[in-house]
């Protein structure tokens, strides 16, 4: 563990910030520049868990880490109908504890997660170009800041449990080699429809040449009426080097009844070879009382390409959250995983995980 002291002090001081604290904003000659920040620090304990070792599945040691997971700075420039947005990300500036996968990648280096420009013709028609996370499901377009709006642990439709060899769920959708999106919103009293249509040119190699991989076309439609939302997302990509054509389909619903929120999503990934088909879904019920929130969740993940998830993994979750101020949030969660399938060693087919996080935004 290193460099945790200054961070703890910074978060402590953030709790004391005056209530009017907010984004850095400069406005001059009709051009507005603002900078917002997101930072989270997470503690994780995880029981010994199954891990792929070649064709076998073996127990992996328990994990106990303290990790600065995300630090993002969003630099936004607005002039009349034009918006330029740059999302800078630094991950794992420090990480302490035992982690069988080794220290997480990143080590505090800064990278550009998103960089796009947008021209807003009207509410119904806006065009965006550049590098950005695609709107898919409820969270993909802001998966780096998901802990602001949901449990700290990603739903399984977006990612498998932390510290596993990556598989299942969906990775950052829409790659980094030029994307275009048309999107907008149509409103009537009490109802709203949001749409997005996008295409991506695929990944680039390190030297900037086209990798001919992950060519993308996608769309999303979300309907909001009263306290409810229903949405569908479609994403097609071609992975020449991996599973061929991949079709992602997702359905999302959300409903509010006073302080109670119900959210559910389902994801199906169909591959041309059927070898990497994925089915995942989750349901989450939360209750908000002033600055406090409690939730319970249920996730299921099946992934044919990964023997750990081939016969299914089920996760039950409960958690609490507390907004210390509008800028500082604390969360604590317990997750219980059950792995099906004869290939999973008995010692690791039931896995407990505890995660706590301190989140700061400005």
């Amino acid at each position, binding site marked *: 563990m290193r460099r945790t002291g200054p961070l703890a002090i910074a978060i402590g001081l953030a709790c004391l910030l005056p209530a009017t604290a907010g984004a850095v904003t400069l406005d001059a000659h009709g051009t*507005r520049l603002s900078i*917002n920040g997101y930072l989270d620090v997470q503690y994780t304990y995880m029981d010994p868990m199954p891990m792929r070792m070649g064709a076998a599945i073996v127990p992996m040691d328990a994990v106990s880490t303290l990790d600065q997971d995300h630090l993002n700075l969003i630099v936004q420039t607005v002039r009349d109908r034009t918006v330029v947005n740059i999302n800078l990300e630094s991950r794992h500036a420090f990480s302490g504890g035992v982690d069988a996968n080794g220290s997480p990648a990143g080590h505090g280096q800064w990278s550009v997660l998103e960089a796009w420009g947008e021209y807003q013709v009207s509410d119904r028609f806006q065009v965006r170009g550049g590098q950005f996370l695609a709107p898919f499901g409820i969270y993909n377009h802001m998966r*780096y800041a998901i802990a602001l709006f949901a449990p700290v642990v990603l739903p399984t439709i977006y990612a498998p449990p932390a510290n596993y060899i990556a598989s299942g769920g969906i990775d950052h959708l829409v790659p980094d080699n030029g994307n275009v999106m048309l999107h907008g919103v149509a409103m009537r009293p009490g109802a709203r429809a949001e749409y997005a249509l996008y295409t991506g040119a695929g990944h680039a190699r390190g030297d900037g040449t086209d990798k001919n991989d992950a060519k993308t076309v996608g769309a999303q439609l979300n309907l909001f009426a009263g306290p409810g939302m229903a949405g569908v997302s479609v994403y097609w990509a071609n992975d020449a080097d991996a599973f061929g054509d991949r079709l992602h389909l997702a359905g999302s619903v959300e409903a509010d009844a006073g302080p109670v929120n119900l959210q559910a999503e389902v994801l199906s990934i169909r591959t041309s070879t059927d070898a990497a088909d994925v089915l995942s879904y989750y349901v989450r019920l939360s209750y908000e009382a002033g600055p406090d929130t409690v939730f319970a969740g249920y996730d299921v993940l099946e992934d044919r390409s990964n023997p750990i998830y081939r016969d299914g993994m089920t996760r039950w979750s409960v958690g609490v959250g507390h907004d210390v101020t509008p800028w500082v949030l604390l969360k604590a969660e317990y997750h219980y995983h059950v792995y099906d399938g004869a290939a999973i060693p008995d010692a690791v087919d039931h896995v407990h995980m505890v995660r706590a996080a301190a989140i700061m935004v400005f």
Partner: protein
Amino acid sequence: MRAFPHRSRAPWRAGLLAAALLLLWAGKARAGEIVVVANPALPVDHLTLAEVKSIYVGEMTFLGGVKLDPLDYSHGGPAAEAFFAAVVGMDPPHFHGWWVKQVFHGGGIPPLMVDDVAEVLRMVAAEPGAIGFVPAESLAGVTTVKRLLSLPAP
């Protein structure tokens, strides 16, 4: 007879009471009665409370083909307290905190922070898409802005 001395002091007491009530009334008017104002070029003459909310939470960014630029007060104050309580059901700090989260949610553009009522009136008069909210009494004699919605004192 004994009442007379009291009656003789009554005008002074009544005057004090009237002055106190006037101050209370004036204070209440400043804190409570808010008017949403826009540039006269904006092609609407009235907004509903729901429309004002849509504008301030970033759902509605155009009106009649004009790009909207909602204004907010950087230092909060009674007008902001009353306005945001009526429109979004939050106090200013929580509304600002909510907007910070929204920036991460989808790249929305928060209301522009200004210092005071005079700056709101100046910007609304100068920019076609500017929309602001001000205490009602600050509009006495003002002809350079359009009144779109009045929020009565709570």
